[in-house]
């Protein structure tokens, strides 16, 4: 089992944002995680990434605690945020950082980016935040895919992509090996339905629906 969450709770300023959430993610699960704003989707993902300390319950990724064993956990997870952060490093510095921390050959990222028509060599000395929205998103996707993680988490990944970019992105996703898992936080199920085999719906911090498609 990739992820095992048992009755996890998290409260912010007296408001319960995760309320006894229990769910498992297995290898090969392609999940669409949905719910209205404030439903707890981002909090759940951040807890998985080790950013939040849960108040109670048990949470593990491949048997590791995301907070206490964050390095071990993050070796197996790739994350693409909804909005590309304004990282001030140059593209070259960023991919070298990722290469060193993730034991990854930076050339792999360059190769993956090329599949989405993003030429990294041309922009390598530019600061990341100076790229266009679409280019930033493509680079983040290339980084996530090249790491070959067991679980890929996408938070509204196509928000900045034009129709062609979206098409290329979905094509790349269809090439992800079957044994890997993906988790999409999305409001647009219709767009990724073909890429998912499970739908989880959250509301007010609870998992209210969890079904295989």
């Amino acid at each position, binding site marked *: 089992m990739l992820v095992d969450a048992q009755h996890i709770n998290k409260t912010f300023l007296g408001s319960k944002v995760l309320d006894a959430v229990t769910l498992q993610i297995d290898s090969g699960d392609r999940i669409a995680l949905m719910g209205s704003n404030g439903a707890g989707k981002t909090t759940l993902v951040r807890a998985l990434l080790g950013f939040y*300390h849960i108040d109670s319950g048990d949470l593990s990724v491949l048997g590791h605690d995301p907070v206490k064993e964050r*390095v071990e956990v993050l070796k197996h*997870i*790739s994350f693409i*945020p909804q909005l590309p952060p304004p990282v001030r490093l140059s593209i070259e510095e960023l991919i070298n950082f990722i290469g*060193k*921390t993730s034991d990854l050959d930076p050339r792999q990222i360059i190769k993956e980016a090329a599949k989405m028509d993003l030429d990294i060599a041309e922009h390598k000395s530019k600061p990341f935040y100076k790229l266009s929205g679409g280019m930033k998103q493509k680079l983040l996707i290339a980084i996530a895919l090249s790491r070959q993680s067991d679980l890929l988490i996408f938070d509204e990944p196509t928000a900045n992509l034009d129709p062609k970019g979206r098409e290329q992105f979905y094509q790349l996703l269809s090439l992800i090996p079957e044994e890997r898992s993906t988790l999409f936080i999305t409001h647009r199920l219709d767009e990724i339905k073909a890429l998912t085999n499970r739908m989880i719906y959250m509301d007010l911090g609870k998992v209210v629906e969890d079904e295989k498609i």
Partner: protein
Amino acid sequence: MKNLLQVAYLDIRESLRSKWFIVYTLVFGGLMALFFITGVSDSVVMGFTGLSRMLLIFIQVTIIILPIFILITTVKSISGDRESNVLEYMLSFPVSLKDYYWGKMLGRFVTVFLPVLLALLLGVAFGLFKGGAMPWKMVFLYTALLFSLSFLFLGLAFLLSTVLKSTDMALGASFVVWILLLGFIDIALMGLMLQGRVSDSLIVTIAMLNPIEVFRIGAISLFDPELTVIGPVAYYLLDTLGQTALMVYAFVYPIVLGLLLSLLGYIVFKKKDLL
């Protein structure tokens, strides 16, 4: 260790490109240039002249602006990274919090300390060019004192950035701490003494705990062993401790305090939610 050095290296690269670093370097380098243009080194004030006079003024100005520069730039960039989700992304890779925190601190230390040191060396070079003798003892002591003062305020900035999550709060706290510490240098302490409402031992304790006052006493005692220029508290401390012990204290105390503050910051960073 590999990741710690990588984080430090990237922080240095990032800082070197940033506007705050350019302003910071220009302020300290510009100060030295200004001293020469205005002929400070040629003037005689209270018996000090030449290179000694210029370094004395440089240190006096540094006491005021170095702490607030370090606090603002560090707090702003670290809290800013959190608010703009840069921290979220960079920490989604397998890098330990220990490597990230101490790597950032190491990188930031290099970028806040080097411009001040270079300005000091620039001043010495100018002084030598004008025919002065190399004041080895003074350069060595000032380098050590600037090192420890920079380290202390960097530790404080890291603590404030981890405890206070919003940039505005952290900036506000930085100003309060800075003004408080400046308020309790000799002048304010003399005021307390004159009023006679506070015991002398409390005033001396406050002076010994205030790193800015400690830095000031340590730096000026080299010029003026009688410390006539900075007041009775400093005079009392010098008379009680002796010059060597006072200088060792002025170097060691800020480092120990800076280490404690940054360690506390690290514990908070590890124990609290990161975002």
